[in-house]
């Protein structure tokens, strides 16, 4: 099977323009990986290891200094195509939704910007997408504050899905959620992935969830790619010290039996 997303030698370098010499401040070393359709990849690493930066590079918020991202074997030069195919879910669903707009107009915005649908088609698409994430068509007239936390998370997913993307990128989608809402969101994402064949890349500190839903793991340390591989391989036979430390910390938490 052809890979859905191919990332080769993607790197990023931020330089301080100092008076005398250019100083390198932060860099993401060349990262390469492949993602197949329907596959989930988790990015692990400590704070400041460049996880969010990698996510930003993938969705096109930040511009990589070298390397390329191929979608279905074609390079992503067309911005519009890229914005449709790779969508992002943000960490704080509450803050990322505009309080002054109804959900309908929130969801309509990406359609206006990225597609040629007319008003009626847009409305139908919004209703379809709301149903897809388990909400009612009437919810399009609601505002953000009228929803519960779980519903807000669903809207965030709906906004990512409305352009029929092929890849979803999520930056800590489960960190701010309560246990029951978290399970609901995890279930929803897994179901959507099965039904639509999405590639899903997410960043998480919660190794329990990482182990549960991801197929492959990418471990970053200070901008360097330390390790990547299948989930059970990494969890059972971590190669580098850094990964071992992360996994051991996690094992230490769960293995207290009494």
């Amino acid at each position, binding site marked *: 099977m052809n890979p859905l997303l191919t990332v080769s030698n993607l790197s990023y370098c931020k330089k301080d323009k100092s008076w005398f010499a250019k100083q390198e401040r932060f860099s993401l070393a060349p990262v390469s990986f492949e993602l197949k359709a329907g596959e989930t990849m988790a990015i692990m690493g*400590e704070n400041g290891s460049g996880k969010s930066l990698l996510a930003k590079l993938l969705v096109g918020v930040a511009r990589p200094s070298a390397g390329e991202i191929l979608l279905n074997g074609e390079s992503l030069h067309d911005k519009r195509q890229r914005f449709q195919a790779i969508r992002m879910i943000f960490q704080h669903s509450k803050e990322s939704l505009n309080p002054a707009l109804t959900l309908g107009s929130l969801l309509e915005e990406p359609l206006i910007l990225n597609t040629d649908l007319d008003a009626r088609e847009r409305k139908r698409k919004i209703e379809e997408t709301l149903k897809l994430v388990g909400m009612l068509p009437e919810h399009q007239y609601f505002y953000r504050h009228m929803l519960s936390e779980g519903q807000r998370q669903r809207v965030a997913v709906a906004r990512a899905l409305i352009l029929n993307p092929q890849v979803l990128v999520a930056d800590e989608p489960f960190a701010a959620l309560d*246990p029951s809402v978290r399970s609901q969101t995890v*279930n929803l994402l897994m179901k959507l992935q099965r039904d639509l064949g999405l590639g899903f890349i997410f960043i998480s500190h919660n190794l329990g969830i990482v*182990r*549960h839903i991801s197929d492959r793991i990418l471990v970053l340390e200070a901008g360097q790619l330390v390790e990547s591989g299948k989930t059970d391989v990494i969890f059972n036979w971590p190669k580098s010290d850094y990964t071992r430390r*992360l996994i051991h*910390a996690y094992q230490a938490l*769960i293995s207290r039996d009494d």
Partner: protein
Amino acid sequence: MPLLDIKNLTLEIDTPLGWVKALDKINLSIDSREVRALVGESGSGKSLVVKSIVGALSDRWKVTADRMNWKGQDLLSMSDSQRRSITRSEISVVLQNPATSLDPSATLREQIEESIADSQLSKGWFWQRRQQRREISAQQLHKVGIRDHDLCLGSYPHEVAEDISQKFALAMALVSNPKLLIADNPTMGMEPTTKVQVLRLLAKLNKTRELSILFVSHDLLAISAMADTMTVLYCGQTVESGKMGQLKRRPLHPYTKALLDSAPSFRRDLPPKAALSSLDGTIPTLQHLPIGCRLGPRCPRAQKECVKMPDVRRIHDHHYACHFPLHRDKI
């Protein structure tokens, strides 16, 4: 005698719709040297319990309790100054999100030195006392595992990393050598390695200084690694409380079971990518509280009787409040 003993704590809030019970008959007791976890989702009133223990609530809210004792003294009937002196010297709180609860306009040195009481210093001239303050604050930082105290103390809250400011908040809380430390969500949003460090630190303090800890969180992983006993809150009601191991092995309340099941880490037999079990819906808001057992509308075992508040029943030291607990078959 327990250190802190709370029975039937009720907190009522005045809303446009009338008085609403934000906390409804909470029971909680902490023995000395005990690590008790207070678990609940956001909106379940964990932080309100913490605030009512230290008395940091608005005057317009009604707090009533059958018993709210600190070492046998009734906290609710004592005068404000007495109560303040207890919270000053014997109870410490680490607030949620230390990076924002620290004063952004003062260096960490000023903040920790301010929290050292005059009574902890021996008499002397002001420069000697200043010297003592510096020594105490450096010692405290070393104890919580911050090595480079000068660098840390000289910086402002936004300049230090999140885990450092968490440890710093802990150091500040421990300056007064408290008997009880209340840690409100101390591991929120931390990566596993830092989390383990902070938990180890708390466990060490619990052993060496005979410190009791009330660990308020919804991170079940951290709690199960740390706590001896656990109290589960749902929507302002105590749902179940008992020994950690017992609760984990055999929960009696449907909510506790749902909470434990929602963490995939505890279920080794779970095949990867299987759907996680979860209760439908979300925790109700204060304006729409159901009557009786507040889990009612979401509970898979709910029946007609659940519109009445169940009494607290006990099996040994395992308390639960449910009409149809899990060890009985469904009727």
